């Protein structure tokens, strides 16, 4: 077994903390916090049904907290089965009376308006997202919000061109779509669900995640500003019981779900006895394959981005590093050094690389699986960074000497934890990458294009990034194979999920 390189073998580089304590301390970053007040949140929110917010007092309420400090950000309504039914009824009425009679060209203009409004309120949305989710402001500002706007902009253009999308001469909408989204990219997932559904002519009932409902409620305000007809989009906040009520509601024609494979499986079982359409975007255990000819500096940044982006709360995260044996020691040594330099802390600070874990429950799961990793014999390296006292935090962690049978190589951790495995030949890399029930995403790093394509052809994954990782674009279909789900979001392919084809 290879010996693991501990941190103190890195003599040439100073960590941030060493730097701060040395005479070069003046080179340390000063805090650069974004202002939380930009969020302009109300203290409490009702449901968004039929174009208006309901009275918060008429529902049970629950709090959405900032995972970085456990303070309450806002109080939101818990939608009951009756509330969900009202939302579905509103969506049905809007479908029958308005939206199905609105031309594609008009639908397009509503979507363009929404895209523009998101751009106009981008800074506010980024702050809300970071407060509610715990992700670094750099990511919500540069990734989540711009991509959400881009998604509406992209699908807007499809609304009056559906007959050219390759699904026959007269593709029809499905009706009312029930959409359940996760907490890792709250606004972006809302955009991924709503934009294609509306472009295709459906009306929607959206259920945001329990821990991150707020950006969707700001989006509801944006829909009002866009003067989207009442009932075309309804937003019901709540816990799993709200999602269940939506899935079981007989007025829903289609369910689109993004979340864990475990929940996706149960949704598929429940929908099996109905005529509802279903698309699922579920978990993953993405392999990031590094060949020995790859440019090492880019590789290190790519691996780091692949697993620590969004605290590893990414279904397509590159959580299994497969590195060619000849360079394994060097890659590991450099990764350990790089992880030590990641800035973990206040998500509102523009210099922060890794923010807060989204919830206490998720933190418990990450801790549990990491403990299992140690017990099963993997070598653990965890960044020595100081963690805030309040809030949910997990220091970036790398496990070396991981075997394929280890749980940290098989189970989706959904946190900032990387498992490192090695391979000798391309065949072995492909076999190991495919040795999972998941099939969402993989990375391949090599300067040799023919080998990259050879590997890409053999990987059982819906998305393959070559010499990059965690890239998203509204024109690019995203989604999984096998137990990572079915259906695509993004691109021309993403329309299929909302058309009767």
């Amino acid at each position, binding site marked *: 077994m290879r010996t693991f390189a501990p941190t103190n073998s890195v003599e040439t580089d100073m960590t941030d903390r060493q730097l701060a304590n040395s005479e070069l301390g003046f080179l340390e970053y000063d805090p650069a916090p974004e202002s939380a007040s930009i969020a302009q949140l109300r203290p409490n929110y009702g449901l968004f049904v039929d174009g208006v917010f309901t009275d918060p007092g008429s529902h049970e309420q629950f709090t959405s907290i900032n995972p970085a400090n456990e303070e309450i950000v806002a109080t939101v309504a818990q939608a009951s089965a009756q509330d969900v039914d009202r939302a579905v009824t509103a969506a049905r009425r809007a479908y029958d009376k308005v939206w199905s009679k609105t031309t594609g060209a008009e639908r397009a203009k509503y979507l363009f308006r929404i895209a523009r409004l998101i751009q106009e309120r981008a800074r506010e949305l980024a702050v809300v997202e970071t407060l509610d989710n715990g992700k670094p402001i750099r990511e919500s500002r540069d990734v989540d919000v711009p991509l959400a706007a*881009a998604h509406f902009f992209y699908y807007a253009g499809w609304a009056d061109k559906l007959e050219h999308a*390759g699904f*026959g001469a007269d593709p029809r909408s499905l009706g009312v779509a029930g959409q359940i989204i996760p907490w890792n990219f709250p606004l972006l997932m809302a955009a991924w669900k709503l934009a294609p559904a509306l472009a295709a002519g459906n009306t929607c009932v959206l259920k945001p995640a329990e821990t991150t409902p707020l950006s969707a409620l700001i989006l509801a305000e944006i829909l009002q500003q866009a003067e989207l007809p009442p009932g075309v989009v309804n937003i019901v906040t709540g816990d799993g019981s709200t999602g269940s009520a939506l899935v079981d509601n007989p007025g829903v024609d289609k369910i689109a779900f993004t979340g864990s*494979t475990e929940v*996706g*499986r149960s949704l*598929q*079982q429940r929908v*099996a*006895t109905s*005529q509802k359409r279903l698309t*699922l975007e*579920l978990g993953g255990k993405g392999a990031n394959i590094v060949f020995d000819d790859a440019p090492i500096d880019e590789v290190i940044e790519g691996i780091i981005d692949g697993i620590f982006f969004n605290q590893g709360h990414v279904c397509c995260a590159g959580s299994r590093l497969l590195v060619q044996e000849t360079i394994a020691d060097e890659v590991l040594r450099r990764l350990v050094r790089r992880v030590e330099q990641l800035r973990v802390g206040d998500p509102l600070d523009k210099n922060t690389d890794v923010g807060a874990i989204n919830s206490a429950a998720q933190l418990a799961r990450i801790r549990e699986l990491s403990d299992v990793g140690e017990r099963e014999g993997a070598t653990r390296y965890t960044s020595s960074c100081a963690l805030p006292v309040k809030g949910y935090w997990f220091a970036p962690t790398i496990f070396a000497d991981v075997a394929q049978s280890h749980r940290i190589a098989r189970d989706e951790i959904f946190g900032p934890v990387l498992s490192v495995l090695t391979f000798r030949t391309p065949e072995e890399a492909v076999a190991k990458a495919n040795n999972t*029930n998941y099939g969402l995403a993989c990375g391949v790093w090599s300067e040799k*294009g023919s080998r*990259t*394509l050879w590997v*890409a052809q053999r*990987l*059982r*994954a*819906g*998305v*393959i*990034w*070559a*010499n*990059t990782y965690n*890239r998203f*674009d509204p*024109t*690019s*279909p*995203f*989604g999984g*194979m*096998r*137990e*990572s*789900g*079915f259906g*695509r979001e993004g*691109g*021309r*392919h993403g329309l*299929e999920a909302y058309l009767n*084809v």
Partner: protein
Amino acid sequence: MSDRRLDVRKTYKLLINGAFPRSESGRSYEVASAKGAFLGNVALGSRKDVRDAVVAARAAQTKWWGATAYNRGQVLYRLAEMAESRRDELAEHVTLAEGVSAKSAQVVVSRAIDRVVWYAGWTDKIAQVMGGTNPVAGPFFNFSVPVASGVVAVIVDQNSSLGGFVDAVLAPVCAGNTVVVLASERRPIPAVLLGEMTATSDFPPGVINIITGRTSELAPVLAAHEDVDGLDLTGAPEEANELALLAAGSIKRVLRPDGRDLDASLRRLRAFIETSTVWHTIGQ
């Protein structure tokens, strides 16, 4: 001395991994013509036969998918050639199975063979029709390729002994999937004949596996099998809910009949195709 020659009858067997075994269970069941005449003792496939067929299909899938689309097209076209040369035999058995006139049976066979040719022509078009490049906002070459789901279990139409079989089986196969097929329980013989023809059409062993037997016994095994990626429920409309429930255990792709004409659309082709999207950096 009589002029009458005693004909040599055929034992109707399974097709698993390119071989024609009887059921490992040793069981068989009597198949009668539409008019009630004895046609033969057909192998009564067992759960073990189904599992063996899935193993064969899984092993064959990499090879079948790895073949060029041109090659897969030629293999499918070869099947049409084989079927054409045995069309009278197929027609005779369609008549026996479905009780239609000899003339109607010829029409059924002609349509089925033409359908094989149609699918033969699809193999190298799918990627162009269903894939493409995506203009992402960044320095990347991004393309989407349709790829096979993997192993597909097909419960074929119980009534259409030949036409239904051709459509349900060749759609996933032409897209690069391998299949385990449950033939029509009461009318299995045309499917068995077509299975024999695949053995002389250069199909790699295991690409098409055909099991005859009781749908109610074998369909749940396929629906619940964890190494099956897709499930076509055309031949089990009554049990569709229950089978779809089993299929959800491993997040299978499920094609359910919904009364619309599947044969005229590309739904069958799309049902067992995945989209794989590759991003590659562009730079000097």
